[in-house]
């Protein structure tokens, strides 16, 4: 399958049972950082690869970019093994905190990347000028990169990832270190890429952005995929909670309610806020009233990606062997 043949919904990125061991101590010790992960990214979607620091997000992305060799399993993009190079003319990559040759100007670096990507001489000048304008760097185009701010370098990073008009774009923490305006701009840009039919793979830990832009997500924790699927389905399927504010409860009653309903408490002056599983709402209201308290308000809480993410991290126990969630920890 080539990029030109890819149809909406086709698998553009396929990762199957990928394992990665890093060697240390003169190569005698191995540390397993990816435990046979599997996931796929479909054509035309924005895919969020989410996980805490050290979960294996960047390692996975580097394997896809051919910067790191996997120790096992297989990974392909557009039907090509990631160890090949020719197909890379169809992909763009923005690394985390991108760094460039600071002795070059913005225009020179984009021209350089365009040459490497095989953009022909006749198209190069026009394409570079268009991208500089697109990322708002036309004014600074002929200044050396060493004079650029972090936000400007991020824009250069995005421009170089798009200079050859790739069909798949990989972004590693694209909002990292940006101010709120910069984040909104990058978010809009990602949505614009999808509107143009491009597939976007995004590594991130900024969950509100994932909720807002990603069609599908995979949550990786300790080198294992804990969840992958549709973002909205994930939020619907996730356990819903109820927030109840009560007044007039004795300290003894509050402790009793906390224990009975596994509720989380927060003091609000003379009131108390209780958060608990939605299914216990009726019983909780009755219990509050029976305890002599008064119900001030009851509000259903939609599960956020953040709460699901935290739950996945908290539930990450020692992985079992033989499954996609396998973890082996330190191996000799």
């Amino acid at each position, binding site marked *: 399958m080539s990029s030109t043949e890819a149809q909406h919904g086709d698998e553009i990125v396929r990762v199957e049972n990928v394992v990665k061991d*890093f060697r240390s101590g003169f190569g005698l010790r191995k540390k397993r950082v990816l435990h046979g992960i599997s996931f796929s990214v479909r054509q035309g979607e924005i895919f969020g690869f989410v996980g805490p620091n050290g979960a294996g997000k960047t*390692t996975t992305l*580097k394997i896809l*970019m*051919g*910067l*790191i*060799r996997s120790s096992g399993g297989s990974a392909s993009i557009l039907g090509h093994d990631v160890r090949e*190079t*020719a*197909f*890379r*003319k169809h*992909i*763009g*990559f923005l*690394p985390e*905190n*991108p*760094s*460039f*040759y600071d*002795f*070059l100007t913005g225009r020179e670096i984009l021209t*350089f*990347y365009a*040459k*490497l*990507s*095989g953009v022909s001489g006749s198209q190069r000048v026009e394409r570079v000028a268009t991208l500089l304008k697109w990322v708002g760097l036309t004014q600074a185009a002929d200044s050396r990169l060493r004079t650029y701010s972090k936000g400007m370098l991020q824009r250069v*990073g995005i421009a*170089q*990832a798009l200079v*050859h008009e790739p069909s798949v774009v*990989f972004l590693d923490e694209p909002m990292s270190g940006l101010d709120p305006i910069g984040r909104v701009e990058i978010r809009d840009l990602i949505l614009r890429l999808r509107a143009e039919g491009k597939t976007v793979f995004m590594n991130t830990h900024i969950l509100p952005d994932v909720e807002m832009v990603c069609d599908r997500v995979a949550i990786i924790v300790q080198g294992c995929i804990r969840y992958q699927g549709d973002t909205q389905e994930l939020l619907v399927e996730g356990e819903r909670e109820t927030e109840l504010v009560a007044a007039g409860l004795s300290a003894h009653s509050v402790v009793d309610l906390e224990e009975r309903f596994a509720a989380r408490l927060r003091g609000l002056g003379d009131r108390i806020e209780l958060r608990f599983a939605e299914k216990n709402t009726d019983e909780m209201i009755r219990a509050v009233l029976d305890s002599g308290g008064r119900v001030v308000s009851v509000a259903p809480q939609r599960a956020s990606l953040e709460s699901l993410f935290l739950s996945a991290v908290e539930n990450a126990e020692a992985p079992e062997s033989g499954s996609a969630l396998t973890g082996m920890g330190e191996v000799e």
Partner: protein
Amino acid sequence: MIAARRILAIAMNTWREAVRNKLLYTLLFFALLLIAVSVFVATLSYVERERILQDIGIAAIRLFGVAIAVFVGVGLIHREVDRRTVYTILSKPLSRTEFLIGKYVGLVFTVWMQMGVMIVAFAGVSLAMDAPLGAVHAAAFALTGVELALMVAVATLFSAFTTPMLASYFSVGVWVVGHLTRNLRDLGAASDSGAVAAITAAIHRVLPDLEAFNLSTEAVHGLAVTASDVLLPVAYGAGYAVILLVIATLIFERRDFR
């Protein structure tokens, strides 16, 4: 053809980086200063002024040429990984081998360009002092150019797997030993021990024989050189550099950029 274009793009960028590097101009300045000082030193002598002038001049070109080759070459790959510039470059349709060869070609071009500036200065002072200049000088500089290309390959090899500091120690070590292997072999051959002779001969074969590129005596004294005196060392240097680059490529291909 397309691979050549990508290699050229990397090479041109390496050259551009080098010519915007102040360290290079510092080294070049001192090389030119030494060539200029050679005029002063030569005038202090009553005899063989031209020989002293050219001895110092050729030595300056060789010494500073190697300094540029080693000190720019050892950071060639390490800088790319350390500054993470390699991430975006290798995500393009470019193989690691093309990248490494491009870096090598760019640095060799830079070193030769610097050498060209030094040769022009050398020729200028030689003409000013009425010192002879001829084909033998051209041959001597051609072989110096091959030696520098070989030293860039040595530095590139070490740069592919170790830190700039260690790579510079190793590269300077190879340069020093490379100029001694011929003497070592001759000493071993004169030894009574067959084992010593075999070991020194093996060292001479394995390590580069950099004296093969040294025609400074012939140049200074205006001695005749044959075509084979030039062509054989050129073939030897090119072959040796290719072997080093193949090893560097094999190492570089296996590296993880964490």
